[in-house]
């Protein structure tokens, strides 16, 4: 029994629960069985996904009946040896002038219509990787006046000739100093009119066909509010356990409100399926943020759960949040408790995994920039302030010594709820546009995109006339029709790392549980929200996709919940997707919130 005598929320005594005409989701029809494979099934697993000149890759194959024939495209770019039903050996050409992707295809001898491809990247020599602080660098954002030390790591540079460095464009984009053949320090210009892109290129001195590039975005210093900058760089590379799996990472700066006492945190996962900035307490190494209290010695703690029944727990703190040139002042955020504090059972019993480490979370934090202003709102209804007669089990008022398992949830007014930071921006506060170029193949070592703040607030976030705007239902879902089946609880979510939908496609049984593992590539098509334009997509074998070091996967998919299509990260490759925040200024009369693409 607890002994403290702290105040209880006034409405903790009596709750009216409302039963309603809630509709359970449309049946998905997907039964529990894994798809039955009839006929020929081929599985391929390359030993490596990238080779240099004269490099060798073995491709292991499994086929349930008959044998295999092998082919190479482009033909003659390297050789295939020892072809058999169990695999083949690929040897790259001794001279490789430009990076080339080769496709090796296994075809059944008993059914020539059945084949399976695998792609390998053949790199010119030497190969160059750019690093900073011993870690591979992806696209970086850098404040005006700041600098970044970069190393080039070369493999196959037999004469140790190293690299030469260059900037593009070269005027007004900063300078290079401390230049050696394997390192350089980039110094951003002292001021920038807005977000300014610049590309740093390292070119092999021995082979000018071998290059590595680093995309940098210079943003005006945080102390210059109102600047026209509204872009944050996104990348799938990096993360706490590289290679990641379709995780869109960015970095944010959090500061003690109204001070310059700040810390920049990288590897923050961008998530359009949730609301609020949540940062691992263990990542906050230099700044101590003030926690949100009731003024009487108790503090608010926050609980959220994700679609995989994992949950996050920790105190609400207040911070000035800087990202991509935008500022959210005095924003309530969640600090994800490290260690193992007592979590109220109203929070923990709904979940399974407390994601309180970088390895479990797959990131240093989550930037929730979904359709709603805070983590309590859905279509204009606040489930935490007590106005509905019930309280979401999201907030708990506890002494600084921590909570008890029996603590009930408490109410919290909207201005103190963990907030979608975009909602608090001075301008560009009505939503986001996330854009990625298409991948050149089914997967890539990394994909780099942009998170643009605001919708129709600037020249870089206008909804194109060709886009469709989608209205959403009372739970922020829309309907997707797949194979004639209506999936009524469908959604678009950068925080899901694949395309998830009910299907008879075989589910992986070994190293990639929760993903699809078809024997051959599957081509599918679905229609969203009555749109006239279908979305065509493909699904490859996840265990094959995961054999290399790639972090971006166009054709990664898996089974979803019943009656739902979860359009995760692969949907963003080759698209711009707009996410409008409910209640904010809308450029499309009658639609809020909405998705558009």
């Amino acid at each position, binding site marked *: 029994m607890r002994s403290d005598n702290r105040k209880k929320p006034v409405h*903790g005594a*009596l*709750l*009216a*629960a*409302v*039963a*309603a*005409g*809630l*509709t*359970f*989701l449309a*049946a998905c029809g997907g*039964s*529990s069985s894994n798809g039955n494979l009839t006929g020929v099934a081929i599985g391929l697993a390359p030993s490596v996904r990238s080779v240099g000149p004269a490099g060798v890759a073995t491709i292991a194959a499994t086929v349930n009946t008959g044998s295999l024939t092998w082919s190479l495209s482009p033909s003659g770019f390297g050789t295939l040896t020892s072809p058999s039903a169990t695999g083949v050996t690929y040897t790259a050409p001794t001279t490789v002038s430009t990076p080339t992707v080769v496709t090796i295809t296994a075809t059944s001898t008993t059914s020539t219509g059945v084949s399976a491809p695998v792609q390998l990247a053949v790199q010119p020599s030497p190969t160059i990787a750019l690093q900073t602080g011993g870690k591979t660098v992806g696209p970086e954002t850098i404040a005006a006046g700041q600098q970044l030390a970069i190393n080039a790591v070369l493999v196959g540079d037999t004469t140790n000739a190293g690299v030469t460095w260059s900037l593009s464009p070269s005027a007004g984009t900063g300078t290079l100093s401390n230049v050696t053949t394997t390192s350089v320090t980039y110094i951003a210009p002292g001021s920038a009119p807005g977000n300014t892109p610049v590309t740093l290129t390292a070119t092999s001195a021995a082979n000018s066909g071998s290059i590595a590039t680093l995309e940098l975005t210079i943003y005006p210093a945080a102390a210059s509010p109102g600047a026209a900058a509204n872009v944050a760089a996104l990348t799938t590379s990096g993360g706490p356990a590289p290679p*990641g799996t*379709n995780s869109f990472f960015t970095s944010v700066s959090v500061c003690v409100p109204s001070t310059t006492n700040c810390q920049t945190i990288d590897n923050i*996962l961008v998530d359009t*399926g949730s609301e609020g900035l949540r940062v691992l307490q263990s990542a906050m190494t230099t700044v101590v943020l003030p926690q949100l209290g009731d003024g009487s010695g108790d503090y608010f703690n926050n609980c*959220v759960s*994700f*679609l*995989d*029944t994992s949950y996050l727990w920790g105190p609400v703190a207040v911070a000035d949040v800087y990202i991509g040139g935008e500022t959210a002042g005095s924003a309530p955020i969640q600090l994800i408790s490290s260690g193992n504090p007592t979590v109220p059972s109203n929070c923990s019993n*709904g*979940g*399974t995994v407390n994601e309180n480490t970088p390895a*479990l979370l797959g990131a240093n934090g989550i930037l*929730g920039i979904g359709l709603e202003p805070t983590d309590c709102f*859905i*279509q204009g*209804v606040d*489930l935490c302030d007590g106005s*509905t007669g*019930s309280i*979401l089990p*999201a907030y708990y008022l506890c002494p600084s010594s921590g909570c008890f398992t029996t603590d*009930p949830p408490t109410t919290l007014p909207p201005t103190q709820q963990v907030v979608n930071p975009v909602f608090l921006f001075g301008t560009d506060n009505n939503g986001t546009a996330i854009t990625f170029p298409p991948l050149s193949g089914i997967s890539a070592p990394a994909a780099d995109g942009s998170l643009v703040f605001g919708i129709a607030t600037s020249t870089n976030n206008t909804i194109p006339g060709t886009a469709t705007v989608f209205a959403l*239902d*009372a*739970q*922020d*879902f829309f309907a997707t029709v797949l194979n004639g089946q209506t999936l009524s*609880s469908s959604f678009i979510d950068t925080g*899901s*790392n*694949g395309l998830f939908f009910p299907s008879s496609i075989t*589910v992986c049984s070994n*190293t990639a*549980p929760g993903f699809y593992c078809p024997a051959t590539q599957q081509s599918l098509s679905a229609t969203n929200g009555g749109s006239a334009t279908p979305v065509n997509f493909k699904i490859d074998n996840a265990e094959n996709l995961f054999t290399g070091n790639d972090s971006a996967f166009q054709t990664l998919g*898996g*089974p*979803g*919940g*019943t*009656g*739902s299509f*979860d359009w*995760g990260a692969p949907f963003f490759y080759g698209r711009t997707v707009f996410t409008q925040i409910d209640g904010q200024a809308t450029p499309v009369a009658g639609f809020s919130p909405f998705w558009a693409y």
Partner: protein
Amino acid sequence: MKLETPRETCRTTGWPLKATVVLVILAFSLPSFAELGGYADSVEVDRAKMKASIKVTQSKAYAVHEITTANKILVREYVAADGRVFGVAWQGPFLPDLSQIFGSFYNQYSDAVKAEKRTYAGHRPVDIRQPRLVVQGGGHMLGHFGRAYVPDMLPEGVSTDAIR
């Protein structure tokens, strides 16, 4: 056991829930559910305490016990003729107390989720397919849904599609 006639259709009302207030629950305690694989007796006990809070719909092979928690989470429990719960489904702005509704299957479920987490970090829908337990779920913040069932407890002739 009082049986109600099956509802004609489900209306597509979401949050806020505009329908009638049908139950009052003291404090924040969740109603006790019968657990997956267990007997439905505790549902009846709760039903007696909370009057109309649980709707029971009887079909040929099973009964559906539908309960709405104080947190507006709708839970349906599928009870076979022998009185045992062979499936559960949920929908709402937050997850229900999974340890309560999964009962003796909770550890098996939790272990399976943790095993998948160890393989690949990141979020994706739940899809657990084990010989004695199937769990599928998904959604986004404030929009969760899912279902679980024990395949070998399904009454003869009942499709898994019924559990939703």
